[in-house]
């Protein structure tokens, strides 16, 4: 068995003390894995270890026998073991505790066994007792090393926790052993465990005459000497806790502790401490609250200021106390600072005008009151009776009479005053109270008579409150967001009362919605107010959905959704189109029914805008269409998984798009931009991409019908012969172009399971259009050859074979024997045997996409395509004609197409068939060919282009492949870098190649060859530090130079002067980032010299 052979080796490695710890860990892991997989049984292991177990060498025995076994068990904690095995192992380790040489192994082993849980084979109580006994009698804890001591304490801790009965049997012995172990301990981590052990002991032996009690004085003596704890924090010690953390931690702990006291001691015993606690809570809150109240978007649904841990605990404690005993509220209500709040509020109208102390008062008191209100219904009632009414008076908000009219005191000048502080307090109270409304299930259990008084108070003021908030929003202007913020937040608070017992009636709720919606529709620019209102609406929408408020959902649908959707549909409104779309999509995604409504609205809007454009030539409409499509792709599609039923609506949308295009037979006006086509393609691709196979089929079927109604089928009849292809132009009508692009997009997004009716004519259509210069057609071709199942052969035949079975006599020379080789028509066009340059470059691009499709599915035919592309990179073709530089460039870029991941097609999102390691395979095919061609290249241009192609291949393959071949690749990479740095055209390629180089510099695998090539690497990097065309190249080059310092000193020292010169020059680089890197690099290189030179 291979496992056994390796075992000896691993054992050897582990026992050998001269090897490194990582080595030990490795061999340990290897053995553990084989045990875990049950390749090896424990018994086998013991037999195999025979030699190490019986040797007379103490060290080997201790390591081999005990520690290995113990560590092994630690690894195997989750593995079920036979009870007998566990039993014998425990016995073994217990016995070994007495031998100090092997004590670490024995301790580890015991600990591992005792920690075993559940089904994994447990240590029996008898065994545990034996362990404890042996430990107590034979282990002298304080004479052991630090790590072993810690193990001892942990073992004690474990024993006490897991086998309390067994430990009780031992009684005195245990207590005595613990005392002895702790006496004199100095290490803090050990002490922490030790203290816990004492705590456990005390819990085990609670009786006043028990063993702990009798040893109590001793125990106390041992432990008390550690108190008081001196805080000796040394600077620079990263493991220790800074003073601030400690004090914060202590505060948090004491607050928590007080809360526990409140829970456990009950009201009567806590009562006499109320005053002290109250002032402590106040202090904590005042100290932990800042004065910055955020009026930003993000704080609409949060308190608006930062809350530390102390703050949270203080709040919890307060809430607990109030909940437990309503009389605590008396202290709160009588507090002078709380009472003063109304004065403070009415002193300032704007928040910014307040002094910091007043801000603090307002924030803390609102916290105190809202937390107390949240504690219970009773406390809420009290708070609302005492404070809310008074607050309303201060704010000048009037209540309505029983008849529903507002009480207006005629001879008073009271009118609503928008004090920010007051509004904030009011909002906090409303938000607190809304959580007290029982949810619908509980509703039935609480009798309606318990209708709380706070509810009726809110109800009395609700109309005026809503008015006040509304006027706050409306009076706000752009430079003061506080008004708008408080207004919207207030409206939101009023709108979030749930259930039938809500103090806000339906008509009032609708008023809130109307106000917010009108803010959205009335603003023509994206102001803070607009965003706040939108967010509030979204919050309310999701609140309605969350609590299944069907009545409110109806209001929401009627007021918000329909309003916005109708705005989308109408083409004339003051609001810019993108803003309507944003608002609509945000609001409607809160509930599936709204989504349905919205997509319907979108559909209608698309159709009407599109036909408006086609008939009237309204360019605004087509712009709206593009924005609408962008909204669908960017806002809706990413949330597909969150929103139920969205897929169905979107598929319907896609089909409507086709319908609309089908019915718009005549385009009276041409597009003046590609924007719309691009947007439509993207939407179509993605909708098809996410749709189910059935939906895909129906979209494709629809598209098929539209195609056949166009002039496109005529293209299928164009024979794939040179004579016919030569004259091809981009001559499609706007409509056909749109249809073609959309169809290509649908094909790109389709999954391999989708069915295509007539593969052959489709391929022909795409072939011809790709040769006409439509890239999307080439991508569709690539997608088809990638995904087709049975149709693949036919497709490839059409692409490669049939093309040459033409009447053209030059190409008819036994073309049938090669599949994708250089004899086919496509290949010949690529190689420039005939046709215009345009046709040639398009053919090369097309071939690249087809090749990518085949490459990804692992089809052999890609080799021949690669061959053709490589041929194109030579400066002359086989018949001796020189290739045009542009053709060479396209051929080099084809390698980028083949190797890089495309966003547009042939990726996972669009269901591409992807064989693993396809990039590696292509790498290993092409790199040797390209390398040999570079050596033999005839012209500088061809050489450059070969390097570009190679750089594309190298920089797109996973970096591990490069690292495995560093030795071979490094020279080529360096040559490539210097060739590519000549022309600014290749700057991006140069940069990606440089990144590959930088990746090899630090890796251990490449170190030898990097070291061997150090002079060339440095020479190359030094040149790149002044590369003028791209800043990141210079920056990376300098970083690489700094990395090179990790090489052996003797290798780099000779280049010191050269590097320093280059880097010093870089200190004057026009870009700051380069200069910064240069300073670091220069400093690093300066310091390698033996003598410290100042400059």
């Amino acid at each position: 068995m291979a496992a056994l052979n390796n075992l000896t080796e691993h054992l050897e490695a582990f026992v050998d003390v001269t090897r490194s710890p990582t080595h030990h860990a490795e061999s340990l892991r290897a053995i553990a894995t084989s045990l875990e997989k049950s390749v090896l049984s424990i018994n086998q292991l013991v037999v195999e270890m025979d030699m190490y177990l019986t040797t007379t060498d103490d060290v080997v025995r201790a390591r081999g026998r005990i520690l290995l076994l113990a560590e092994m068990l630690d690894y195997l904690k989750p593995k079920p073991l036979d009870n007998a095995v566990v039993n014998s192992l425990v016995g073994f380790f217990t016995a070994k505790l007495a031998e100090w040489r092997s004590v670490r192994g024995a301790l580890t082993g015991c600990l591992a066994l005792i920690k075993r849980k559940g089904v994994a084979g447990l240590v029996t109580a008898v065994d545990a007792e034996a362990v404890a006994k042996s430990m107590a009698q034979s282990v002298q804890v304080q004479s052991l090393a630090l790590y072993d001591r810690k193990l001892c304490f942990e073992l004690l801790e474990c024993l006490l926790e897991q086998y309390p009965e067994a430990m009780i049997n031992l009684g005195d012995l245990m207590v005595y052993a613990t005392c002895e172990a702790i006496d004199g301990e100095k290490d803090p981590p050990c002490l922490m465990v030790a203290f816990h052990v004492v705590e456990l002991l005390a819990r085990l032996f609670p009786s006043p005459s028990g063993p702990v009690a009798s040893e109590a004085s001793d125990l106390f003596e041992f432990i008390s000497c550690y108190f008081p704890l001196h805080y000796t924090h040394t600077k620079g010690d990263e493991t220790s806790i800074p003073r601030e953390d400690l004090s914060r931690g202590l505060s948090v702990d004491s607050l928590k502790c007080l809360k526990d006291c409140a829970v456990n001691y009950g009201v009567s015993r806590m009562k006499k401490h109320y005053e002290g606690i109250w002032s402590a809570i106040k202090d904590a809150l005042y100290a932990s609250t800042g004065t910055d109240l955020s009026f930003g978007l993000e704080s609409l649904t949060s308190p608006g200021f930062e809350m530390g841990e102390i703050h949270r605990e203080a709040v919890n404690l307060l809430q607990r106390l109030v909940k437990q005993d309503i009389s605590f509220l008396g202290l709160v209500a009588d507090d002078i600072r709380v009472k003063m709040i109304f004065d403070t509020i009415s002193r300032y109208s704007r928040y910014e005008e307040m002094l910091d102390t007043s801000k603090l008062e307002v924030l803390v008191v609102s916290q105190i009151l809202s937390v107390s209100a949240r504690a219970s219904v009773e406390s809420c009632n009290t708070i609302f009776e005492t404070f809310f009414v008074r607050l309303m008076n201060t704010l000048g908000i009037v209540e309505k009479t029983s008849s529903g009219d507002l009480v207006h005191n005629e001879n008073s000048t009271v009118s609503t005053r928008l004090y920010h502080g007051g509004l904030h307090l009011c909002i906090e109270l409303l938000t607190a109270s809304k959580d007290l409304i029982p949810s619908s299930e509980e509703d039935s259990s609480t009798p309606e008579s318990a209708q709380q008084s706070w509810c009726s108070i809110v109800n009395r003021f609700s109309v005026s409150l809503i008015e006040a908030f509304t006027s706050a929003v409306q009076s706000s202007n752009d430079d003061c967001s506080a008004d708008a913020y408080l207004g919207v937040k207030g409206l939101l608070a009023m709108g979030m009362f749930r259930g039938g017992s809500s103090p806000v009636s339906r008509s009032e709720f609708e008023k809130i919605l109307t106000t917010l919606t009108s803010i959205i529709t009335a603003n023509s620019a994206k102001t803070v107010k607009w965003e706040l209102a939108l967010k509030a609406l979204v919050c309310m929408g999701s609140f309605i959905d969350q609590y299944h408020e069907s009545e409110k959902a109806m209001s929401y649908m009627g007021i918000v959704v329909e309003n916005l959707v109708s705005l989308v549909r109408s083409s004339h409104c003051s609001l810019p189109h993108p803003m309507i779309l944003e608002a609509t999509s945000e609001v409607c995604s809160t509930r599936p029914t709204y989504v349905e409504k919205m997509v319907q609205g979108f559909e209608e809007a698309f159709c009407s805008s599109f036909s408006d454009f086609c008939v009237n030539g309204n360019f605004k409409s087509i712009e709206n269409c593009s924005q609408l499509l962008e909204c669908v792709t960017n806002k809706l599609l990413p949330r597909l998984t969150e929103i139920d039923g969205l897929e169905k609506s979107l598929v319907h949308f896609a089909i409507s798009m086709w319908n609309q295009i089908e019915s718009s037979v005549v385009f009276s006006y041409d597009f003046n931009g590609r924007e719309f086509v691009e947007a439509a393609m993207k939407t179509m691709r993605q909708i098809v991409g996410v749709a189910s196979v059935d939906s895909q089929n129906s979209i494709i079927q629809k598209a098929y019908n539209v195609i056949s109604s166009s002039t496109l089928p005529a293209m299928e009849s164009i024979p794939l012969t040179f004579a016919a292809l030569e004259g091809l132009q981009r001559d499609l009508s706007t409509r056909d172009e749109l249809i073609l692009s959309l169809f290509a997009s649908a094909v790109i997004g389709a999954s391999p399971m989708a069915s295509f009716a007539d593969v052959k004519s489709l391929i022909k259509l795409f072939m011809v259009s790709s040769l006409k210069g439509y890239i999307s057609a080439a991508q569709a071709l690539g997608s088809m050859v990638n995904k087709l199942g049975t149709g693949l052969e036919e497709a490839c035949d059409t692409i490669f074979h049939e093309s040459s079975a033409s009447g053209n006599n030059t190409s008819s020379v036994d073309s049938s024997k090669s599949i994708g080789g250089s004899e086919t028509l496509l290949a010949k066009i690529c190689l420039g045997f005939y046709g215009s340059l345009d046709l040639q470059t398009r053919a090369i691009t097309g071939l690249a996409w087809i090749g990518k499709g085949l490459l990804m599915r692992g089809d052999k035919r890609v080799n021949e395509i690669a061959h053709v592309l490589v041929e194109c990179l030579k400066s002359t073709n086989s018949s001796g004609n020189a290739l045009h530089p542009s053709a060479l460039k396209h051929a080099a870029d084809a390698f980028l197409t083949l190797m890089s991941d495309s966003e547009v097609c042939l990726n996972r999102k669009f269901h591409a068939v992807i064989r693993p390691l396809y990039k590696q395979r292509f790498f290993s095919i092409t790199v040797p060919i390209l390398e040999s061609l570079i050596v033999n290249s005839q012209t500088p241009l061809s050489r450059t282009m070969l390097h570009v192609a190679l750089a594309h291949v190298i920089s797109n393959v996973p970096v591990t492949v490069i690292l495995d071949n560093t030795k071979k690749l490094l020279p080529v990479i360096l040559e490539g870098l210097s060739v590519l740095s000549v022309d600014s055209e290749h700057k991006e390629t140069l940069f990606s190649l440089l990144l590959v180089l930088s990746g090899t510099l630090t890796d251990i695998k490449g170190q030898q060859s990097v070291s061997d090539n150090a002079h060339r690497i440095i020479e190359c990097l030094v040149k790149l530090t002044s590369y003028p065309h791209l800043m990141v190249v210079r920056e990376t080059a300098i970083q690489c130079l700094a990395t090179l310092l990790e090489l052996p000193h003797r290798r780099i020292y000779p280049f010191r002067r050269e590097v320093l010169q280059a880097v010093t020059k870089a200190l004057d680089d026009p870009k700051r980032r380069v200069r910064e890197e240069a300073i670091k690099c220069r400093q690093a290189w300066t310091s390698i010299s033996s003598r410290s030179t100042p400059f």
Partner: protein
Amino acid sequence: MVSGLINENPTVYERKERRVRTDSTNTDEFSVEPIDQLEIFDHIRDIRDPEHPYSLEQLKVLTEDSVEVDDHKSYVRVTFTPTVEHCSMATIIGLSVRVKLMRSLPPRYKIDIRVAPGSHATEAALNKQLNDKERVAAALENPNLVEMVDECLSPSFE
């Protein structure tokens, strides 16, 4: 040598937040970002005081306003304020600032290091010493001094 500290209890101020530059660079590859006041201040703010574990910025020996720079004329002047008037460490501080700038700025720059007027007892002598090429070179021949300077500079290279 004085055995005690020259300033036993210096006032320590807050470090200013490092300003992150809004990257306008991404828009134009070829725009030039001239060396400016903040950049130079960033080079020297973290230099450590020779006798306290605080940076020169924390002791307000240097502030952003103490740097004057003219990139076109390749000229920079740093004016520093020793914490006490009779500070004998002022030379070391001045030397450290000079060395740091020599290592960080292109060679075309002329560097002028000065003590703030009225902040030091031997102001004129100090200024002369710090800007005398020969004397600076000579000082840097002294391994003890170089070691001291290097120690002050080490945090500023992190």
